[in-house]
């Protein structure tokens, strides 16, 4: 039997992770509950008469998504530590890049599914009227999540092998999320407030550039984080 190509192998790894998640649903349910709970709590942290709900919705969305993303990312390599399942992945005849890509695809699906719940919850709780902008907002979400996944998957692999484990992941990855979050929040607030699409353009360009650079860099860097 010939070993599968990089992309095919990546898909197999992703499917394995998603099957585990689909059958147990532990990480997804806790991330969803966390996200919706945080959306509700944040509603009460501003004075409604000073800042309207529509004005703070983008900021809330991005804070909530970042932290619920970290919940999912922590599990990504955490589940491989049980019974040293990672060793089985490493001796299988697939390249290390495809392990990374597979994990990243799994995380991407996880986070997109999370958003599919969080975004409608935001629209309901914050009474947003953005029916026309929903596609644009989803697009921005996807661009930002792609960058979060690229960085987060790599750092998740590194963090599980340290003494601090889960504690290290936010500390390493949050500074890397800064440009993503700044640009995504700015672009979202422009779209939601009905400003012309062109005003969001520079932020989107930066998001795309970030995604390209870090998807490539993290894929190349991943083999160095595994034991030789």
């Amino acid at each position, binding site marked *: 039997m010939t070993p599968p190509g990089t992309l095919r192998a990546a898909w197999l790894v992703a499917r394995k992770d998603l099957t585990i998640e689909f059958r147990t649903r532990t990480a997804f349910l806790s991330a969803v509950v966390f996200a919706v709970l945080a959306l509700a709590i944040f509603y009460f942290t501003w004075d409604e008469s000073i800042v309207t709900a529509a004005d703070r919705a983008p900021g809330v969305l991005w804070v909530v998504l970042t932290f619920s993303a970290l919940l999912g990312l922590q599990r990504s390599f955490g589940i491989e530590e049980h019974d040293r399942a990672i060793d089985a992945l490493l001796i299988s005849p697939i390249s290390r890049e495809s392990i990374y890509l597979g994990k990243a695809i799994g995380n991407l699906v996880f986070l997109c599914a999370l958003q599919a719940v969080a975004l409608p919850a935001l629209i309901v709780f914050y009474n947003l009227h953005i029916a026309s902008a929903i596609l644009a907002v989803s697009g921005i979400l996807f661009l930002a999540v792609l960058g979060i996944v690229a960085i987060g998957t790599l750092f998740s692999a590194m963090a599980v092998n340290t003494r601090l484990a889960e504690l290290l992941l936010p*500390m390493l990855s949050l500074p890397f999320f800064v440009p993503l979050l700044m640009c995504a929040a700015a672009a979202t607030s422009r779209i939601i407030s009905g400003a012309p699409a062109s005003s969001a353009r520079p932020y989107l360009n*930066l998001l795309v550039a970030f995604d390209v650079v870090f998807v490539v860099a993290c894929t190349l860097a991943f083999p160095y984080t595994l034991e030789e």
Partner: protein
Amino acid sequence: MTPPVSRATNERASPEVKPVLDWFFWLAVLGVVALYVRAILFTPMDAMQGNAQKIYYVHIAAWLPAYFAIGVMALMSIVYLWLHDERADRLGEACAEVALVFLTVGLTTGAIWARVIWGAWWVWWEMRLTLALFLWFVVAGYLVMRGAIDEEHQRARYSAVLGVLSALLIPFIHLSVYLFQARIHPMPVALQPGKPKMSDEMLVTFLSSFVVFTVLAIAFVRGRYRLALLRERVQAQLEAGA
């Protein structure tokens, strides 16, 4: 009784255990003392900013070595991934620690100066402040991660990966803060952060502060590198003894 072990111990323990604090370090300290005697007693006061301007001789001087050390750290990360030379890892670690110290000095003195001159401790839209703050977090994360890994090759590899990615991150933070700055307001409050014209005495003090701080940073990196060597040696002796 066990010759291989004792020979290994001897090799590690033997020659050239150089002192961490040597003449070069004390020369740098002397330079710092001389600089501040000059800055406080023999340099005229700024007409507009008064005594607050004297913080330039700490604040601006601290940035040069901080950014230089971060640059060397990133470069050493690439060198390590390429050559797997442990000297590059040690130098990268030393530079990261020194960068953290100088960034901390720069950020705190900057906030003190800004409170007096701009009227605010912190101005988010000032690009240099924000960039420096996030660099501080990146370097702090690098050092915390190093502290959380026991196996030295793994620590070196992870550090190098993080060092390279950090170098890639810097332009993105810079650009995103720039976009925000362009949107909100051009420059902070009434007084510009730009340097007023300096008298010759001030300029000499100012330029010598750069030289002194750079020498001090090199002395720190040098000492920290030797400390890392000593630590490894002690570690090896402990393992050989165990």
